[in-house]
């Protein structure tokens, strides 16, 4: 509650109201947190996601070596291979390659661990950006009538192009850097967010309390911020989780097809793409990054299901 709007209320009363509403809000928040923590899917998905985050942050300290270090003497080794190798200071040290090495002698374990970074960055960036952009466009479509049909026709067109193809097309045009990959994965996701936001806005604007707010002359921006936006939050968080999962998958697919971030960068998709050639003899090049990828996507999806059940019971019922 901002002071500027309530200049005619006595200060004491306002403080009281604020304290009361804050208390109410904190009780509500506690309940939500408790509900979330009681949900098995949220716990399972959450723990794996936190573990992945920790892995990506702590990547240099997890017994990894430079993921781009090429060691011609130790090429194509099977998982668990032991060797005496020279470290950075040219000292001979003993090293076990838990996940083997690839055709250039790079350590798969280090590459997989570092690959966590790219996947998480892409997943989180695409999820948050597509929600911000989709929210803005969705609010416009829901509130500015003449823009609505134009925006929705563009969205229909975008949705008619299968997402992976659109992403491949965009990346192939502009060259693959981490930024273009994020944009390319984001564009096909936006229409889904826009549709969701628009449908919420259209139903909210008919609610009596919104009509009441309009009738006392609430400015549009305040109306959106106070009444419409909070209603979109729960579904958007749920949608964001699913977008995150799909973005991680699409990034891996782009890399795997050779259309993603440059091959030297250790991404799960790149490791698998390089492992393709020798797959029959050395399946571990595909297996280990594949496990990490599948586990991460699974965790995000399960987290999404749990969030959907707790935050957005209406949607949970429908599915």
């Amino acid at each position, binding site marked *: 509650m901002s002071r500027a709007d309530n200049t005619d209320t006595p200060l004491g009363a306002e403080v009281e109201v604020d304290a009361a509403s804050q208390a109410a809000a904190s009780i509500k928040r506690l309940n939500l947190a408790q509900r979330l923590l009681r949900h098995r899917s949220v716990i399972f998905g959450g723990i794996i996601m936190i573990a992945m985050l920790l892995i990506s942050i702590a990547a240099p300290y997890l017994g990894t070596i430079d993921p781009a270090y090429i060691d011609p003497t130790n090429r194509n080794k099977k998982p668990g291979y032991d060797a005496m190798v020279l470290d950075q200071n040219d000292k001979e040290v003993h090293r076990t390659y838990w996940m083997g090495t690839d055709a250039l002698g790079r350590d798969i374990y280090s590459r997989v661990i570092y690959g966590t970074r790219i996947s998480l960055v892409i997943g989180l960036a695409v999820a948050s950006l597509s929600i911000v952009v989709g929210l803005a466009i969705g609010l416009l479509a829901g509130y500015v009538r003449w823009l609505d049909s134009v925006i929705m026709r563009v969205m229909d067109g975008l949705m008619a192009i*299968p997402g992976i193809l659109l992403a491949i097309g965009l990346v192939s045009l502009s060259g693959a850097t981490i930024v273009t990959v994020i944009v390319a994965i984001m564009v096909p996701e936006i229409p889904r967010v826009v549709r969701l936001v628009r449908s919420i806005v259209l139903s909210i604007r008919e609610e009596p309390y919104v009509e009441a707010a309009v009738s006392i002359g609430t400015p549009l921006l305040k109306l959106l911020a106070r009444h419409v936006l909070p209603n979109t939050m729960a579904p958007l968080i749920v949608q964001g989780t699913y977008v995150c999962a799909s973005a991680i998958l699409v990034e891996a697919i782009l890399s795997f097809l050779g259309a993603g971030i440059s091959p030297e960068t250790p991404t799960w998709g790149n490791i698998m793409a390089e492992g393709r050639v020798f797959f029959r003899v050395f399946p571990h090049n595909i297996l280990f990054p594949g496990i990490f990828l599948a586990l991460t996507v699974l965790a995000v999806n399960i987290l999404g299901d749990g969030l959907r059940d707790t935050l957005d019971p209406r949607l949970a019922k429908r599915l």
Partner: protein
Amino acid sequence: MFGFVIRRIISTIPVMGMVALLVFLMLRLTPGDPAAILAGDNGTPQQIEEIREALGLNEPIHKQFVIYIYDIVRGDLGESYFFKKQVTELIAQRVGATVSLAVVTLIITILVSIPLGVIAAYRRGSWVDQIVMGFSVMGFSIPVFVLGYLLIYVFSIELRWFPVQGYKPLSAGLWPHLHRLILPSITLSVIYIALIARMTRASVLDVLGEDYVRTAYAKGLKNSVVLMRHALRNAAVPIVTVIGIGIALLIGGVVVTETVYNIPGLGRLTVDAVLGRDYPTVQALILVFAFVYVVVNLLIDLSYTFLDPRIRY
């Protein structure tokens, strides 16, 4: 009814027009000279000039779009600078493999997912239901190519039941054709099965709460009759709708599956075109796939009246 069909067909025109506009703008809005992008890394200045002339890139942009649409409507999707052929010719050569893959995948998907969904709904909360729902979450999470390689490793390399990779056209005989399509189709169907089993379950669950289902049971009809004739038939519309929406997943999956299994179809062509920086082909394939998606969903919309005679337009 006839009026509806006509109106529904006409309504796909703006969508396709929008797709064409987006594909058109994709190239024009990318920083850099479109002609240079189209000519690829080895394009000579002369080639670039020819492309500029052929696409009318010196004309104002609305005129360019008119030229572009005019070419598409005439069936001219441009020329591949990588394969040195008309794109339509390239597509015609490879469409067979993709259609076979898609058809076998659809058959597997429908045969597996719908019974799974019905059983899960019927035994709601039981272990069958939990396995089906668990499978559906897993199906969404396992990357198509990881699954593909896993299946190749187990069934082709270890067990030797199937050829490792490759493709034989139908003209080489039905069995050699199918034999090489089984693993790719299973790979491709998993995510689709996950989607449709989930939708079937939800949709049948809705119907099972209806009065006429209770009446059917009360009449003493067998479970199977109630489920198939009463529940599934009434649940059909949302299921078929999701099959249509899932075509987008299928198309994305085709691109990956054909790469994993080395199938010379449209998906493989897309990847080759991207890697060869053959943008006219990429552009044309995006249009073709979007067209397929729109047409399939048009057919599904039209099928509602047959599935559910209550729906009248």
